[in-house]
């Protein structure tokens, strides 16, 4: 009578099989990882390219804006009016009307967000234009809510001399604590 003995791999065979399987697994994992790294590097490169392109576009836009400003408002005739707010407890700004030599050049309504930006230290370019050299008159009319939430409207007039260079005028709204009133000051730069 013939008996069948189950075939068993020798111990050494098992070890070889396990080592091979492990090697294949490692190779597969490493391969995947390499692919992923390559893909990530590719994405990063594209992303960097896009970012670089965006930066170039922003720079180009800035240069174009400067060029346009230089062409439209040459330094010899340029006049710019800025507005800033310092504290502003006694005055809630609503609008500013600007007249240059009797002609209205700007009438600006301020939203809550814009007033908040001015409160945080923002300076607004209210007007940019051209003027010939000589004496000029600037009238700024501020409207808003004054102390005790009353409607408040006040005008400031300033005469200035425009020379050959660009002229910058800053309208500054500050609080006069002693009088519990707002104060409207004008500063000039050449």
């Amino acid at each position, binding site marked *: 009578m013939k008996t069948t003995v189950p075939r068993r791999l020798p111990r050494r065979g098992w070890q070889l099989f396990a080592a091979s399987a492990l090697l294949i697994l490692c190779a597969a994992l490493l391969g995947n990882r390499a692919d992923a790294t390559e893909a990530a590097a590719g994405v990063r490169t594209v992303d960097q390219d896009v970012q670089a392109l965006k930066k170039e576009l922003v720079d180009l836009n800035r240069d174009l804006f400067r060029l346009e400003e230089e062409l439209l408002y040459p330094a010899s005739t340029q006049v710019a009016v800025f507005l800033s707010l310092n504290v502003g407890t006694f005055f809630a700004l*609503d*609008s500013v009307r600007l007249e240059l030599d009797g002609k209205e050049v700007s009438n*600006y*309504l*301020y*939203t*809550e967000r814009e007033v908040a930006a001015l409160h945080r230290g923002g300076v607004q370019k209210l007007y940019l234009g051209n003027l010939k050299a000589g004496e000029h008159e600037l009238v700024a009319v501020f409207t808003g809510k004054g102390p005790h939430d009353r409607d408040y409207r006040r005008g400031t007039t300033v005469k200035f001399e425009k020379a050959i260079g660009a002229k910058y005028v800053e309208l500054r709204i500050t609080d006069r604590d002693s009088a519990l009133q707002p104060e409207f000051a004008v500063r000039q730069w050449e």
Partner: protein
Amino acid sequence: MDFCDRAARARLKARAHTTVLAAAALAGVLVYPMLAKAAPAVGTVAPDFALKDLSGRNQRLSEFRGEAVVLTFWASYCGPCRSALQSAGAAVADRDAPAVALGVSLDRDNDRAASVAGSLGLSYPSLLDAGQSVGRLYDVQHLPLTLLIDRTGTVRQIWASEPVPAEVLIQHIRELDP
């Protein structure tokens, strides 16, 4: 001889005048389109403006960048405008059509605008353009005028003379880029 000289000089002068006039006309033709303010068309950036609303708050169009805007020009004397205003309100109330609505009244009398807006129960800002400066900026020829402005501030649709049904507005809002 002297007569010939004078005639030649006169001809030369006439030719110079004609040349100057032609150059001026050409310059006018070329420069006018650049200086003239064109009404906003589909695909152009909606001109920015700031106006007071009925509650006295100042509203600026550019502060709604990032949101789709349904801008409706209307007046109290315009019957179909009421329907246009209600359509805009119904469209922006739809959850699947995220947008804000703004109405711009061209009434010279703010009280009349307030009365109509109140009677319609509008839930969105009604801006007052009594001076019609924004009306001129948008070259409003027919009322109602409804513009759909996308998140980047570009005009995507314009409907003039008749109210747009709310469903049409909703459809167009949904089709805007997310």
